C-alpha cells in the first residue's frame, strides 16, 4: 500500500476497477461514496439514490433553502440529477434494488462471515439507527461488494459467524479491504488478491473466517486516477 494513502482511499481505488462502464450502482454511505473519485475516465456509472432517482449528479452551486423544492440524496443532502436520470416513487426505487436491477451495490461493513453474511446496520445497545435501505439493497443487488477495513481497533471483522445483527445472509459476492480481496463462490470464501507488500500469512493472521487461496492469486492493482 502506498505509504501516504489511507486504507479507505486504497479500498475505494480497488473497487473503482471492479465496476464496469454502464453499470447501475448504489453506493452506501461512508467509504463507498469515495469510489466515483477514482473511476477510470472511460467508466461511466448510473448511480441510484434509494430515495427515488437514478443518475446522481454533482452538488449544485445554488442550493435552494430548506422548505423550497429541492433534490436531495438518501442522506437528505442537496444533490442534482444528470440528464439521463429519472425520478420515481419508493416502490419503484426499491423494486430496482430488491428486484435485481442494479448491477452492483457497494456497502460498508462491520462484519462479514465466511458464508457471505453481512452485518452493517446496528450495534445493540449502542447505535440503532434503523436499517433504512441496506437490507433491500443487500438482498437484491446483482453483485454485493463490501468495502471495509480489514480489522477495527485490532478486532477481526472477517469472521466465522457475525456476532452483530445481520443485514443479509449469504449474499456477499466480494469483500475488499486494504489487505485483500475475497470472492464468495457457492458459499465459500476465496482469497483472490493481496495488497502490495502483504503476505497470505499476514492475511490469515488477521482473518478469523476460513478461506481458500485462489489458483489465480495475484497482487492487487488499484486505480491510479489522480496519482
Amino acid at each position: 500500500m502506498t505509504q501516504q494513502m489511507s486504507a479507505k482511499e486504497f479500498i475505494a481505488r480497488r473497487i473503482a476497477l471492479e465496476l464496469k462502464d454502464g453499470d447501475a450502482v448504489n453506493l452506501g454511505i461512508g467509504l463507498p461514496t469515495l469510489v466515483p473519485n477514482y473511476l477510470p475516465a472511460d467508466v461511466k456509472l448510473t448511480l441510484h439514490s434509494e430515495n427515488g432517482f437514478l443518475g446522481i449528479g454533482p452538488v449544485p452551486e445554488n442550493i435552494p433553502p430548506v422548505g423550497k423544492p429541492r433534490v436531495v440524496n438518501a442522506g437528505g443532502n442537496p444533490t442534482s440529477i444528470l440528464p439521463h436520470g429519472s425520478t420515481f416513487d419508493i416502490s419503484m426505487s426499491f423494486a430496482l434494488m430488491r428486484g435485481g436491477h442494479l448491477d452492483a451495490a457497494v456497502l460498508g461493513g462491520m462484519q462479514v462471515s465466511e458464508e457471505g453474511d453481512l452485518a452493517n446496520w446496528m450495534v445493540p445497545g449502542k447505535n440503532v439507527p434503523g436499517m433504512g435501505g441496506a437490507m433491500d439493497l443487500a438482498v437484491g443487488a446483482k453483485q454485493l461488494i463490501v468495502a471495509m477495513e480489514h480489522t477495527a481497533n485490532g478486532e477481526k471483522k472477517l469472521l466465522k459467524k457475525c456476532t452483530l445483527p445481520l443485514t443479509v445472509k449469504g449474499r456477499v459476492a466480494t469483500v475488499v479491504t486494504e489487505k485483500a480481496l475475497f470472492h464468495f463462490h457457492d458459499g465459500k470464501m476465496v482469497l483472490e488478491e493481496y495488497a502490495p507488500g502483504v503476505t497470505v500469512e499476514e492475511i490469515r493472521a488477521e482473518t478469523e473466517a476460513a478461506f481458500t487461496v485462489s489458483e489465480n492469486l495475484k497482487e492487487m492493482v488499484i486505480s491510479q486516477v489522480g496519482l
Partner: protein
Amino acid sequence: MKSKRLEIEQVASFLRDGMTLMAGGFMGNGTPPRLIQAVLDSGVKDLTMIVDDTAFLDATKGPEGIGLLVRNKRIKKLITGHIGLNKEAQRQMITGEMEIELNPIGTLAERIRAAGSGLGGVLTPTGVGTLVADYKQDITINGQKFDQKQTININGRDFLLETPLTAELALLEAVKSDKFGNLVYYRTMRNHNPLMALAAQTVIVEAHEVVEIGEIDPDHVMTPGILIDHIVFPA
C-alpha cells in the same frame, strides 16, 4: 363539483388522540411542513405514525419532518425505516418513551402499497434470517394464531410475510395540485407520497401551487385526484 379546498385551521377537525397517521417524505423532503405543524398545534397525542424516517434534528442541515412531533412527544408508536439522524428519536426509543418498529424501507413501502392496492400482504426476501424475521406480530393464518412474523418457503426460497399498513389519515406534500387533486411531485419529493395516497381513509395534500382543472396534462399526473380528499392551498 364540491370544492376540496381546506383551510389549514380546519386540519385539526380530522385529528384525535391515539389515531394512526401516515406522512410522506424521505429525510423530510416531501413531508408537508404546514400539515405537520397543524398536527402539533392541534395538541393531539399518543399518535401511531407511519413514516419513512425522523429526518433531521438540526434544522440547519435539513427539514425536521415529523421530527417536530417526536421532539414534542406526540408519538406513542413509530413505524419507520430510519431514525439515525435524529438523536432525540433514538433517545426516546432507548428510554422506552416511544415504541419504534423498524422496517426495511422497501418493506415499509410495500406494506403501505399493499394496503392501498387491496392486497392481503406481501412476500419479501428482505430481512430473512435477520432480526426483522423475529419481530413479534399477532397474525392468524388459516385459523392458526402466531405471535411472530412468519417465514414462508415458496419453491425453495424463503420470504417474510409482511402485512398491509393502513392509516386513518395521510398527509402528503405536492409541488402542484389542480382543484380536483391531481398531483405532481418534484424530483425526490415524490418518495412515499403516491403510495400513501392509496392507503389511508382520508388524504390531505399540502400543495405548493394549485391550478385550474385541465392545466395538468393527464399524462403528467402522478397521483389521480380521486384519491385526494382535501387540498390545503399555499399560504
